[in-house]
């Protein structure tokens, strides 16, 4: 099963395949292990954690949209302490690296959660600065380079674990935010989180989601994700975990070519729980057919000219 050609190192974490289960879409791994072993995955990012337990937003929380979906889960989670006590033992014994995804309402909270995760068996920390659902937090940190720098610094100071900052696409200049994270010692970037959107029921004439707005994910956001990864790859040195609408091997390869060192899949899992196997096999076949020695040779390979910046359209 283990194929050295598919191994990648991401921000100091060794992945047996470049496929990561995206935060919030894979629980803490248990639910999808009911389909069988998780051999095709390289790592799992757990659902978003906050310092204290959070009940999340009222339902309805999800709705389908053209080639995508909106969610307004609102970070329902047991809080970091209950997570460590009740979930971490099983999460850590799935046989692959597991990462924690953290959110705070204040800069200090981010640091506090990070400190609690130290020594727990977590392989790395993904810092969610972009969850658009929680009115009090998230959005502010992810859209302001100074706030994002402060969060990154707070987490960096409190942990020796790899720190991966997850960027929001709901910004004008994603590069400035990527550079802010890199400048404060982030080991990697995750991108992209969901795009803020909404849907209205024309029969009841009300928004479908109880929270009015939700995060758009799935194939509909793929071109936006690719463009942002392309831009950021050119501007930073730290590796990128690319995600946003990946549903097949060709999608994953596009993300690698744009500059992602590894890729995450979220909504695509809902469509097809067996998606990791299909993508792994597809990447493997592509590498062999095109004569690459390993998947790492694909990373950023679409940037050959080194130029090509500027406006489209």
């Amino acid at each position, binding site marked *: 099963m283990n194929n050295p050609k598919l191994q990648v190192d991401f921000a100091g974490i060794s992945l047996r395949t470049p496929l990561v289960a995206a935060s919030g879409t894979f629980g803490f791994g248990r639910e999808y292990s009911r*389909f069988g072993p998780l051999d095709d995955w390289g790592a799992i990012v757990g659902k978003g954690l906050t310092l204290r337990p959070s009940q999340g937003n009222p339902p309805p929380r999800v709705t389908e949209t053209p080639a995508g*979906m909106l969610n307004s*889960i609102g970070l329902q989670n047991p809080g970091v302490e209950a997570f460590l006590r009740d979930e971490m033992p099983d999460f850590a014994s799935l046989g692959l690296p597991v990462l924690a995804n953290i959110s705070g309402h204040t800069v200090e909270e981010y640091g506090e959660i990070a400190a609690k995760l130290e020594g727990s068996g977590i392989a790395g920390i993904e810092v969610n600065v972009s969850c658009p659902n929680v009115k009090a937090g998230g959005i502010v940190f992810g859209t302001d380079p100074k706030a994002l720098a402060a969060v990154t610094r707070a987490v960096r100071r409190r942990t020796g674990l790899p720190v991966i900052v997850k960027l929001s696409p709901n910004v004008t200049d994603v590069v400035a935010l990527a550079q802010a994270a890199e400048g404060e010692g982030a080991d990697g970037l995750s991108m992209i989180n969901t795009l803020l959107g909404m849907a209205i029921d024309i029969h009841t004439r009300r928004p479908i989601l109880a929270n009015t707005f939700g995060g758009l994910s799935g194939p509909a956001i793929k071109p936006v994700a690719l463009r942002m990864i392309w831009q950021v790859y050119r501007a930073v040195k730290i590796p990128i975990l690319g995600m946003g609408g990946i*549903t097949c091997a060709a999608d994953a390869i596009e993300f690698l070519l744009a500059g992602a060192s590894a890729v995450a899949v979220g909504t695509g899992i809902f469509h097809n729980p067996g998606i990791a196997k299909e993508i792994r096999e597809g990447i493997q076949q592509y590498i062999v057919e095109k004569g690459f020695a390993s998947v790492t040779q694909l990373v950023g390979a679409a940037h050959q000219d080194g130029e090509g910046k500027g406006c489209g359209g």
Partner: protein
Amino acid sequence: MRAQQDHERLYQTMAIIVANIPIGPGTYRLTLLAPEITAAARPGQFVEILPGAKAAMDPLLRRPISICAIDKENGRIDLVYREVGRGTRMLGEKQTGEKLDVFGPVGNGFVLPDEARKILLVAGGIGMPPLYALAQSHPEREFVLYYGARNQQELIMLEDWALLKIPVKIATDDGSSGFKGRVTDLFLKEAGTAYHLCCACGPRPMLTALAGILQQQGKKGLFSLEARMACGVGACLGCVCSTKHGYQRVCVDGPVFPAEEVIWDE
């Protein structure tokens, strides 16, 4: 909070369509050859179906459909669905011999206490199918079905209930068959209190009204709920409903909940 069935195996498979027959207005009975799912299936559980072509990304999400009949000998399950939107209309076009990407069986199902010897079933419209699986799987218990629909045409599977020798009490909105009015009014009028448990599935207003009746009678109920779902396995927390224990996932903590634990006025 962990669902008791968290460890049970789930199967994703390309099920073969054995039949997909119209049985009422816009309503079909779909027979699937899916031996692994069938072997594990219990009444009250459901499957998650991808209605589009394989590798088509739109519609993106699977559709939850209850298991209506379980044929363990032949490895087949029957589903009964009504066309209400894009996904179910796509299902209606499927032909015998085609394959469907399906996973399951999902959910807790109806877990009957031993002392529930006489059980009243209350169905509203397309909520009836999971109650059929329940009755079919428990020949040792006594059932009566209260069945509400808009009109006579929308009443389906009456012959199947007759085969199980289960009495069916009908209510229609327009009075074209049976009692004219709501099924909960018929229940209140005729059911009495000589029963041990009430199992129900149907529109939320029906369940809310019925939960009120049961509470007044001091009776227990097991109700199957619906919610918009994304993952259908308990991972995304997209399908929660309000209960006395906080938000619970309809897909794996349910879809069957004790009526007295659901917070109905939401």
